């Protein structure tokens, strides 16, 4: 058995499982006791295994969505047996989120984790004062003046004025309240689109009949105003008026005594007690209720408006401010074991529908902070 070719052939065939018993014995005899031979054989083994890995790697089909479904199926069976009612309820809550939640996330998967992201949910007060809870289950309502309100399954709603124009009916006001852990989108009767963030309220007429289109905001909203030169759009927030001439911008009144406007596109004018200040795109204006002053600066708009597209974007932002935003969406309480942690500046990007732990772990890696979550409280040290 000294012929090199014969040995090579045998070794390769051995690896392929093509040898009979007699031939295998031959291979064994050749390898055993000879260090060189063993090494030689192992080199074949290595190539063989590497080849297998490489070629087979492409044939692997399973991915996380597939696995999660498998896991969910198994778990659902188990749980139906024990707490049937509970699970039905949990499933029901999340159904409408399908379009926003990454498709792989089965709704019940996160049932066990205590901290959940928010979702599309709000309370709509009709002009009659009746409150209708809305989420992402479809719904059709009609106001007394004939305006049709449609709640869509993607967590938005739209107003359509009736064709009965000019019948002298006065504007009926609607009031939309988005709680913590909520968000909602709506299209007003004039076609203006509004994104309402968590813990925010908007009052607006269900159709616009006057010389101005006036809405009232508390909290945070992003506006994409339908242009209409003859009839300006005005957002009243705290004591500031934001006058719009067809444009996109974000308004935030969350900080005590401050109304913040960030302009993305077009022109807006901001007016408090003093004179009107006109903003250009990429400018941020802060109206300070205390002294009635408006401070304007140029900013990168992305961190201010990312929430509209379902993201958190933090750029060199203080932990205190970051946690304020996270706690609205995840309904968290934050406990700082060291006070200076609030001032630590961090950056990070995450989808709003993901687990908050992902972001916290990331912050841990990029700072010397430690986060631990117990129930719905985040401890920072």
């Amino acid at each position, binding site marked *: 058995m000294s012929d090199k*070719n014969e040995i*090579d*052939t045998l070794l*390769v*065939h*051995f*690896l*392929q*499982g*093509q*040898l009979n018993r007699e031939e*295998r014995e031959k291979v*064994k005899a050749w*390898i*055993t006791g000879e260090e060189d031979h*063993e*090494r030689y*054989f*192992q*080199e*074949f*083994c*290595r*190539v*063989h*295994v*590497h*080849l*297998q*890995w*490489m*070629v*087979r*790697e*492409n*044939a*692997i*089909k*399973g991915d*996380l969505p597939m*696995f*999660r479904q*498998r*896991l969910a199926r*198994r*778990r659902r069976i*188990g749980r139906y047996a024990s707490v049937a009612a509970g699970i039905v309820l949990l499933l029901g809550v999340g159904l409408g989120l399908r379009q926003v939640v990454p498709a792989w996330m089965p709704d019940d*998967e*996160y049932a*066990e*984790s205590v901290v959940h992201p928010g979702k599309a949910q709000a309370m709509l007060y009709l002009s009659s004062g009746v409150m209708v809870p809305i989420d992402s289950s479809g719904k059709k309502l009609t106001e007394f003046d004939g305006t049709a309100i449609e709640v869509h399954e993607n967590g938005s709603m739209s107003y359509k004025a009736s064709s009965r124009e000019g019948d002298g009916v006065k504007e009926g006001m609607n009031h939309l309240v988005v709680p913590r852990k909520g968000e909602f989108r709506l299209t007003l009767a004039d076609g203006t689109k509004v994104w309402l963030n968590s813990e925010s309220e908007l009052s607006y007429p269900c159709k616009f009949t006057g010389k101005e289109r006036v809405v009232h905001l508390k909290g945070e909203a992003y506006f994409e105003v339908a242009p209409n030169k003859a009839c300006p759009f005005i957002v009243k927030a705290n004591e500031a008026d934001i006058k719009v001439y067809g444009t996109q911008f974000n308004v935030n009144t969350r900080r005590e005594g401050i109304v913040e406007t960030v302009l993305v596109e077009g022109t807006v004018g901001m007016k408090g007690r003093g004179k009107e200040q006109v903003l250009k795109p990429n400018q941020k204006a802060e109206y300070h209720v205390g002294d009635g002053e408006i401070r304007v600066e140029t900013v990168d708009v992305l961190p201010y408006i990312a929430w509209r597209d379902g993201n958190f974007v933090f750029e060199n932002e203080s932990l205190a401010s970051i946690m304020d935003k996270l706690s609205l969406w995840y309904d968290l309480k934050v406990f700082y074991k060291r006070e200076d942690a609030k001032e630590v500046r961090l950056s990070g990007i995450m989808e709003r529908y993901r*687990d908050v*732990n*992902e972001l916290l*772990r990331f912050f841990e890696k990029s700072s010397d902070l430690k986060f631990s979550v117990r129930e719905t409280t985040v401890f920072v040290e």
Partner: protein
Amino acid sequence: MQIPDDVICSLLKQHQTKGIDYMFDKYYRPLVLWAATFVNDIPKSEDLVQDFFVKLWEKDVGRTLLPETLKSFLYTSVHNLALDRLEKKDPLRDAVELIHVRRPWEEYDYFKEEIFQKMKEEIEHLPERSREVITCVYLEGKSYKETAQVLGVAVSTVNTLLVNALKKLREQARDMTEYLTLLFYLSAFERNKEYLQ
């Protein structure tokens, strides 16, 4: 992004689904390939690994896992399960299925990109026929005979092409042995009892 094992373990300890997600992201593919080293079938290996992950989750094995040993725990378990499955399938299985690769995940871990890149380049240099043979034999798991039929050549040609291809690859890959101690040895000769436990 690969999540460190200690993060995975601590999430699993709290029975957080994120833990099993991260584990899947990081270990699923290597474990499937590792299982396939014994089972020689990708769909079956995928099934095996998914099954293993499901059990791990349901039995809450995560409570006992340690970051230092997570990797070896996973590979050893999958190894055992694979042999188990083989045992059930064919108690008198072919000896070659018992090539035992000791700690190959370390190799896989450290050299994954490198190995794959290198292999790809090397395969590019092979004659087209050899590449076809490799695909048939390795990817599709065809026997020499079937391969010969598919490619419309004689069995002896398949033989030769494969031997030549592996020889060439072996020569090109030889310098890699220097990185590592010898990882491979043949257990077929020792008979397999100890690996079945």
